[in-house]
């Protein structure tokens, strides 16, 4: 068998390239009806009454009264309804569905429905949430969750410090902008409901249906369809529309298709959390960073959703890849009457690494040191403990990564040149970062308990049964490679279909950069066991995740190994700024990653390139503002994602550092490539203009403001 990293043809390639792949909106079932959602026009209001016009035969309304089970989305906290009961908390919150055979008629009915709101005073920003004394959105406090953790002896360290350096940073909303909008089809047949659709987590959708219907789980089936991108945006939101489609199908007794409009999708589905991060580093008389205090605030929107989990990752990543021995971190996710913030590739990491990387740069400047050299002094090493005092048991190659990327990009030479050169606004910046792979702490075992199944048929065929979804990242190919390589059989013998909850065990969601490292490893273990039994005719092997004995986690104190393992990386971006228009021209992009072993070099390259471009978009062009509870850039005309013209080629390299608990040494990659891009870009811009960048996206308008203020310094 060759090296596993050697690329193979993707198994989903043919049907995608020639247009045969059937995404949700491509499917038309017999007698299928359409659904459209009536959404709140108010940021915060009581619903006094809803006037529904006369409905022609064949048309239905689906509202909270059609929910036989619990009208609560099962996600961490029990606060978000599937369909608004008697109050709404954000513009775009779903109130009811209109279902029927003819789209213009549905639109007609929607126009005639009159919702009588009694407006309440909305909370529209973190600042407003902080001021709030009463009439809270959630429970009896302004935030959904409030966390803190610490390391070492911060009081002592502060006492022995000479001075401190403090910065405050802000990051904005970001929209996932998957090319395929959220979509579902609900079917009710033979006393069972089946929901098909575009999703990352079939079992999340199934759990949501079980909760909404109160039915036994064998009456509910969820099947993933080819999915046109997810990026976290299809982690929990599909649970809501999946239930909508299911309820509609049950009521109508016919299949119902629910496809979100692009503007609807941007306005109403979950977004990246805006964040305000304050970092204060204490410096002693040896110019050493002895302690850090970090304060984090995120705008979680109207419902808790995944905000507690995002906040955790943000706060564990907040001191970056640096061994800060005395650390105090506190974090709050505020409730506001705005669109719900949720999962987006990086999941708190992009916000955290932007802040810490800019901050370390500022420290270096104040201490008159080269920032990359300063960072090196604090790089984590094997044997150190993390921000949450978890032991780093495996080799960490940050030094090698930093050396390699500096060489590739000629970082030193350019840095020196650009720092002194005044005629052109050129700059170069380097970010160093990590991403914890897998669910936080011991949640892989405590919360998810992922199971995988590998089946051997009597003929030459092995089939993978997992709930992991192909969302473009190559799961239908990479998991096959792992199994084939472990079994030493031709990859054509391995079957893997889009997950169907009737056949696939719950392997957990396709998130957190866990699919290869956790699920791939479980499949690998199944395959090894299967190899020994290969001569048996037909049999199944199921494996369930066991939390590694060499890891520990205290979920009350947030102490221990925050993640099963980490991937590491560095990005360099070189930029030139037009002095007349303040627009950016990116001259070069370099990336070095340690992801253990690439399971497929070509797929890995695709993930690297796509993640970096998405991260650069976050860093400089994806402006998404909320005003009076409404997102201002709600179409692809106004919400600008990078085009083919915007950024140049990317030069990337991988460091060889296999992880003994990963399949063939692999760790996660899905999110790592997005995390470091915006900080590297912001650092390059800061280097070019000689002014501190404290927020992203770094727009020309902001650059102009920074350069203008400079004149008055």
């Amino acid at each position, binding site marked *: 068998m060759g090296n596993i990293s050697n690329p193979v043809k993707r198994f989903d390639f043919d049907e995608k390239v020639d247009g045969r792949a059937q995404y949700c909106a491509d499917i038309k079932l017999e007698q299928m009806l359409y659904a*459209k959602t009536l959404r709140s026009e108010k940021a915060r209001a009581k619903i006094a009454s809803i006037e529904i016009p006369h409905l022609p035969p064949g048309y239905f309304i689906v509202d909270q009264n059609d929910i036989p089970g619990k009208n609560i989305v099962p996600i961490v906290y029990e606060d978000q309804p599937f369909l608004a009961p008697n109050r709404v908390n954000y513009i775009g919150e779903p109130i009811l569905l209109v279902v029927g055979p003819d*789209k213009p008629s549905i639109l007609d009915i929607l126009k005639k429905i009159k919702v009588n709101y009694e407006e309440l005073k909305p909370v529209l920003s973190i600042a407003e949430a902080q001021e709030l004394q009463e009439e809270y959105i959630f429970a009896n406090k302004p935030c959904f969750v409030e966390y803190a953790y610490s390391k070492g002896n911060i009081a002592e360290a502060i006492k022995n410090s000479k001075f401190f350096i403090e910065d405050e940073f802000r990051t904005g909303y970001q929209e996932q902008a998957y090319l395929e909008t959220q979509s579902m089809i609900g079917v009710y047949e033979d006393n069972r409901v089946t929901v098909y659709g575009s999703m990352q987590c079939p079992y999340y959708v199934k759990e949501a249906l079980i909760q909404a219907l109160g039915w036994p789980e064998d009456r509910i089936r969820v099947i993933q369809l080819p999915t046109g991108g997810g990026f976290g945006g299809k982690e929990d939101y599909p649970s809501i529309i999946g239930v909508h489609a299911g309820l509609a199908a049950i009521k109508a007794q016919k299949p119902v298709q629910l496809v979100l409009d692009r503007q609807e999708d941007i306005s109403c589905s979950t977004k990246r959390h805006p964040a305000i991060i304050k970092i204060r580093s204490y410096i002693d008389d040896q110019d050493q960073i002895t302690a850090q205090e970090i304060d984090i605030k995120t705008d979680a929107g109207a419902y808790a959703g995944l905000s507690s989990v995002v906040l955790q990752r943000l706060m564990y990543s907040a001191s970056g890849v640096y061994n800060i021995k005395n650390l105090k971190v506190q974090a709050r996710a505020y409730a506001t009457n705005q669109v719900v913030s949720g999962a987006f590739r990086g999941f708190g990491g992009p916000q955290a690494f932007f802040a810490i990387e800019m901050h370390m740069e500022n420290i270096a400047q104040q201490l008159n040191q080269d920032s990359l050299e300063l960072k090196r002094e604090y790089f984590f090493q094997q044997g150190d403990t993390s921000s949450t005092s978890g032991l780093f048991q495996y080799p960490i190659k940050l030094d090698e990564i930093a050396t390699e990327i500096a060489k590739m990009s000629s970082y030193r030479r350019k840095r020196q040149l650009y720092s002194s050169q005044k005629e052109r606004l050129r700059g170069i910046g380097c970010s160093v970062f990590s991403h914890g792979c897998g669910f936080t702490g011991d949640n892989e075992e405590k919360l998810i308990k992922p199971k995988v199944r590998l089946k051997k048929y009597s003929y030459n065929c092995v089939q993978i049964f997992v709930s992991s979804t192909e969302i473009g990242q190559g799961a239908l190919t990479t998991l096959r490679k792992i199994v084939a390589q472990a079994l030493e059989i031709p990859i054509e013998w391995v079957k893997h279909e889009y997950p169907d909850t009737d056949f696939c065990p719950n392997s957990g969601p396709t998130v957190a950069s866990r699919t290869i490292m956790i699920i791939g490893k479980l499949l690998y273990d199944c395959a090894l066991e299967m190899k020994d039994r290969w001569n048996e005719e037909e049999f199944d092997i199921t494996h369930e995740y066991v939390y590694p004995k060499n890891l520990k986690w205290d979920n009350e104190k947030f102490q221990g190994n925050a993640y099963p393992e980490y991937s590491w990386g560095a990005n360099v971006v070189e930029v030139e700024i037009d002095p007349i228009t303040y627009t950016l021209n990116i001259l070069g992009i370099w990336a070095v990653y340690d992801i253990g072993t690439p399971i497929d070099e070509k797929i890995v390259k695709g993930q690297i390139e796509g993640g970096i471009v998405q991260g650069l978009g976050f860093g400089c062009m994806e402006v998404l503002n909320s005003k009076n509870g409404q997102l201002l850039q709600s179409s692809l005309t106004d919400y*600008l994602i990078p085009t*083919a013209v915007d950024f140049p080629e990317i030069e990337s390299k991988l460091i060889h550092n296999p992880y003994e608990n990963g399949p063939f040494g692999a760790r996660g990659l899905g999110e790592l490539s997005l995390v470091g891009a915006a900080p590297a870009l912001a650092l390059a811009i800061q280097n070019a203009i000689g002014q501190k960048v404290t927020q992203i996206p770094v727009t020309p308008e902001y650059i*102009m403001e920074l350069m203008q203020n400079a004149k008055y310094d």
Partner: protein
Amino acid sequence: MVKVYRPLNLIEALDIRNNENTIVFAGGTDLMVKHREWSGAVPKFSTSLLFIGHLTELQTINIDNNSLKIGAACTLAQILNDKRIPDYLKLPIAQMASPSIRNMGTIGGNIGNSSPAGDTLPMLYALDAQLTIQSKSKTYAVGIEDFITGPGQNLLKPDEILSEITIPLSNYRQYYYRKVGSRKANCISKISFFALANGDAAQIHEVRIAFGAVAPTVIRSFEAETLLKGINKSQISERLNDIKSSYANLLNPVDDRRSTKIYRQKVSLQLLENFLLKELVW
């Protein structure tokens, strides 16, 4: 009842325009977005539509006596592909939208839309474009600067059709165009700057400058252009402040979801200064 007319020729089109209230539909790249309903549902119009994009009479490009005449239904791509059309005219068009939009969108549509950020407009204003307006009863010409009266507003009457754009041609020594957007392609202009100059070693014969997206309509300053007329390039610096003031008084940008007033104001004047001091080279 909303009707859809697909006339056989211009005369028939003008007849229909004369008889009823219609929206003129050429490439449809704006109209189809503005009136879109749900995926699968037909776009909703409350006024009848008159399709003219297929009329070959409106798709001609001719050069006649140093005058370029472009049919209003010429697509942007057609203009870009025509070798007779000078480069300075193509510069703004090449950066509009995307290749697929340029294959359908028309110059007449961009003018008819009369958006403050319309990308063909600064160039047309700077070139003193004349528009031929036709109705059943008459045909007349109007300068583009008079035709567009405000954001999305123009003089076109319900019985009229914009049929042709006439541009006096000249050998400009220098031409310069800058579109400022929030990404490098396929975006609405935050500012656009178009300039032409003519002269010889001794003096500037004329300079024409037009700004787009920074006021309700395109800005040209005859006061400023006069200050530049007939002077030596070395004299530009001494007149620069007056020239800048002249434009500063005319610029009237706004804060919106794309950009800010102060950015647009400042960058416009910097584009101007850069053009006058650095780009005017020959």
